[in-house]
């Protein structure tokens, strides 16, 4: 059933009783052409593009819990593509372009709101980095501009522009096409659209082993029995090392807690997204009115989906530095996700040493914004058994060749 204002109206007359499930709840088949492990946004997007763009008929997405329950549902929903290096910038820009038509493509409103993303500069070093990054973005055809204090103040009236603050704001980079989206809707929208293409989305199905024969993947062991497939794509942010260990593969990943929190809902007070690497905080206001605030990662590795409260306290201090008037606002809820950090703050998307096994992991703190692009290139990689040119630089081999893509600066989170 197509979603529209008309369908809402029609269903209202039947007391909303004729809505169909957004996705089926199928029993796993014995064999699939492709198995995607991980029912987060990236995995569901991969399945959707595999079916839609590459005509793969027989796909399963296996999710150990509920779809969208990992980092997809735990992030601060920021979307942007202003990365420094060409490789990363083009990948995120592909994603940005997909975001811009995603609600229409999926027929599911993911509420992508292009309200602009400001990255603040607080000192000369920051401003030089901003100039460098903005110039690099422009060379790559990505919208980027440098804005001065006056424009910042005009567009973000709540911000503290005092020259006497500990980290005065000298300027910012602005990506106007950047913004925020509704995180759950991304998972659900891809799930519904993938399901419509015939993809089996199987929840409560945990992969407990990877089956191999003669160096090739043959299927997976799950809590709901063995499922066979010649191609297995693993997209399990926060658990990539655990899955890789099932195939005796070592990854250059450490999994850290990344925390965030929301305030109580407020009347609109912040119309854009504000990030600051120097004070380690980023903030936007959701359509419901909550201030959504992200902190830096915790120093230790952890799979607990929680971190240390001092990290939240630091983020709180940073936000009050930027927005002194938020001091009396109250934190409603605080949570953590698990982010897989690569040494160069870039993902790994590609083939593994086992034939037919593909990994898409290591997105660190920046995975949400990449969701559609990540799925799009990963689908290509699986379908062709060969990476798309956009993700070719992001292979595992770069850690041996040394062709790292250092995006620590653009990740904008204290590492």
């Amino acid at each position: 059933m197509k979603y529209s204002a008309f369908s809402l109206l029609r269903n209202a007359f039947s007391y909303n009783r004729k809505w169909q499930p957004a996705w089926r709840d199928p029993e796993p088949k014995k064999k699939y052409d492709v198995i995607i492990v991980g029912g987060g946004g990236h995995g569901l997007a991969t399945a959707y593009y595999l079916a839609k763009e590459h005509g793969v008929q027989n796909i399963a997405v296996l999710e150990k819990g509920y779809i969208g329950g990992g980092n997809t549902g735990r992030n601060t929903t920021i979307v942007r593509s202003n990365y420094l290096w060409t490789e990363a910038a083009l990948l995120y820009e592909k994603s940005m372009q997909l975001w811009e038509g995603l609600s229409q493509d999926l027929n599911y409103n993911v509420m992508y709101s292009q309200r602009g993303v400001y990255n603040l500069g607080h000192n000369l070093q920051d401003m030089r980095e901003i100039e460098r990054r903005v110039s690099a973005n422009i060379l790559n055809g990505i919208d980027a501009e440098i804005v001065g204090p006056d424009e910042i103040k005009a567009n973000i009236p709540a911000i503290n522009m005092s020259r006497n603050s500990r980290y005065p704001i000298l300027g910012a980079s602005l990506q106007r096409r950047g913004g925020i989206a509704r995180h759950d809707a991304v998972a659900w929208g891809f799930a519904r659209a993938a399901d419509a293409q015939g993809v089996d989305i199987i929840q409560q199905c945990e992969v407990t082993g990877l089956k191999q024969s003669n160096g090739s993947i043959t299927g997976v062991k799950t809590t709901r029995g063995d499922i066979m497939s010649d191609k297995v794509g693993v997209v399990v942010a926060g658990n990539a090392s655990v899955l890789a260990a099932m195939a005796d593969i070592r990854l250059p990943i450490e999994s850290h807690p990344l925390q965030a929190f929301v305030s109580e809902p407020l009347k609109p007070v912040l119309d854009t997204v504000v990030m600051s690497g120097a004070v380690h905080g980023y903030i936007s206001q959701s359509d419901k009115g909550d201030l959504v605030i992200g902190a830096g990662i915790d120093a230790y590795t952890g799979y607990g989906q929680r971190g240390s409260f001092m990290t939240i306290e630091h983020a709180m201090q940073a936000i009050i530095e930027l927005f002194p008037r938020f001091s009396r606002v109250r934190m409603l809820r605080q949570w953590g996700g698990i982010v897989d950090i690569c040494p160069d703050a870039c993902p790994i998307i590609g083939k593994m040493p086992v034939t037919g096994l593909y990994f898409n992991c290591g997105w660190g703190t920046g995975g949400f914004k990449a969701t559609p692009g990540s799925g799009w290139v990963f689908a290509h990689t699986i379908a062709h058994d060969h990476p798309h040119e956009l993700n070719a630089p992001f292979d595992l081999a770069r850690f041996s060749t040394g062709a790292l893509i250092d995006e620590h600066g653009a990740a904008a989170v204290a590492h």
Partner: protein
Amino acid sequence: MNSPGNMAGSGHSQVNRLDTGGRIDRARPITFKFNGKAYPAFSGDTLASALLANGISLVSRSFKYHRPRGIMGAGGEEPNAIMQIGTGATTQPNLRATQVELFDGLAAKTTKGWPHVNFDVAALNDLFSRLFGAGFYYKTFMFPRHSGDTYEKFIRHAAGFGTAPEHPDPDHYEHCNAHCDVLIAGAGPAGLMAALAAGRTGARVIIADEQSEFGGSLLAATDLIDGKPGTEWVGDVIAELDSMPDVIRLPRSTVFGYFDHNFLGVLERRTDHLGEHIHGEARQREWRVRARQVILAQGAIERPLVFSNNDRPGIMLASAVSTFVNRYAVCPGKRAVVFTNNDRAYQTALDLHSAGAKVVIIDSRQEGAAALADRAHAASIPVMTGSFITNVRGGRRVHAVDVVHRDGNADSRIAKQLTMECDLVAVSGGWSPAVHLHSQSGGRNTWDDERLCFVPGKSVQEAVSAGSCNGTWPLDECLAEGAEAGRVAASQCGFDIASVTLPATESIEYNAIEALWRVPARKDPDRCPKQFIDYQIDTTIADVRLAIREGYRNVEHVKRYTAMGFGTDQGKLGNINGMAAIAECLGKTIPEVGTTTFRPAYTPVTFGACAGEGIGDLYEPVRKTAIHVWHANAGSPMEIVGQWHRPWYFPQDGENLHAAVARECLATRNSVGVMDASTLGKIDVQGPDAVTFLERIYTHNVGKLKIGRCTYGIMLGEDGMIMDDGVMARIGERRFYLTTTTGGAAHVLGWLELWLQTEWPELKVHLTSLTDRYSTIAVAGPHSRKVIANLGCDVDLDKDSFPFMTVRPATLAGLPVQLFRVSFSGELAFEINIDSNYALQMWQAVMAAGEEFDITP
């Protein structure tokens, strides 16, 4: 008998105020403003009790449908009465009226309803509500492609409750780190007994309670303890606790977070009850408590029953009604209906009866209550057993309820119905233990089929739950559990057990609670008038059913799709009914459905309190060089480099940055310039294996470096990339002096220590940071040698005896220094390294010595 509405004196308009009883201070009348109009109240009131005393029942509009809403609870579970308190810089958004202690002059405003809470144009949404079912926004606002912005403006217009202040916060906040043997969360009967039992052993105890007074449920109860009113017993316990030197008693303090390794956050509200802004006092204090043992005694939260129009103003939790009657001397209605599935709400009927209200009890159970039923009978309170409220009449205030008597099982079609006029419905669907902190600590919860609630499972940290937050309802058992918890916790900490006698209480016999969540309606759940689960978010039974119909079957999916539990009460009131609705819909049990995750904060915590002192000047330390004051006096703006403030440029006569820098460069090129390079990192490396160590760290052959020589050193990471650079000087056979970049200093030292301590512990090398110990003054330019000479240098400065890239111990201006001949600028240059205590003196000497060459900073 109490009678509302005939108070003498100032309370003339407090129509619902009782003339005796309660814990308010009638001798201290106060005035407050609500939506601009002044009302009388008494010291000791909350905003909620004062509103109810004044007969104000409509206090908000709901989030989505803008339905009229009244006060529902009496504490942190309140979903509706979300207020804006105060004005200007000290305004506070989103406070629950039930938790706001009144002070004279307090100004409160409703946060929903336009143009006014009594007449809200957006209430039209309610008429078209079937269009706005769960997740409707995912299905529309998509076309045409760029119209999203316009829709967004519309959506955001409806956002939020209160308004953030428009000015910086004039208040300040503080952190307090505390260690204790036993932290007790909650000072109700169980918590107080635990504090007594632990405190008497001599253990260091912190006991915190979110309310203004200790006592918890006893503040609103009529039970006798040791033959006297419960509040008197509470007073005695407080007096004893206050006599114990190692007991810290924290009222108005919420344990909001239970983190790893028994670290807990407590928010103490120190001045909010005194006024909007109390000059000089820290407004709130975040206690950061590391406890050896934790006792969770936070009590339980009553839950509503779900029936059509169960959100109308005048419908309240039974326990809240008792609280308003007994604690605040406010009777919120004159004709009340108590609707319950358990015995305890009978007490509310008795309380209402004592307050002069007419009461009827509707009990869903065929057998009704046990001992309390006899008391109700003795008070001539009519009781209808085996009956439900199915619908509520009235818009801005309940004026009647539809009541049916049930035949046989709960699901049979409803036949007989009568309509009962009333202005108050006190509802009780049983109780849910406040397992929040237990869950935050990592503990799981288990479903108890008898008590019909989740109770805390095994603790995974050093903690125990006691009293009603452990699912223990009877007062005598709560007291006993608290005492036992206090004893055990203290003995775990190594204290000898002290004797504690349990106070005498009356033991009351109760009949079992009935599993009733959603009351059957006359129409099926999709067609009947709305049955609310989450009041604040406007989640209804139909929404949950729709979510499940559409495939959102996991409890987390239902929550996220319907937004159930996303309100500022975090689902304290409604989530359990939502789980029951999911269970009903899926044909599962509630434990099979499971709970959503409990996360901090238990109740919202002020950003400022979490930030504590660490804002403004104390946000991050400022490091200044020893010569800073000279630079500042000379008018140099400061460049921020990490924590350092270092002089940026020294403008003359209104020069801008570029002009000044050009002039300074030219001076260095043509004559002599001077720079304070003290922010560079400096590391002293000593030991017999210093050469071996540095050769492994740097890309150089360090062994070949002669004493007194310098080299430019590059430090590589293991990935082969340059990590840091600087000058390495050999001071002695076994001693080196390294400089690092300003930003890299700490990292480099940590890196060196890491290798030394973990990989090569056999190397005898010692590292010392000298960054702050020594200051560096760079003198550069063709005349630099003459400037150094002018200072009265005791070593030869000519280029053969003191060549480039060498270092000499020297005496300059009578002060011992390490003098380097190194250059950052390409010009002839010297770097003076000097004890920071003498750096300013040396700088001034350099400036004097360079005057004839117009030395330029």
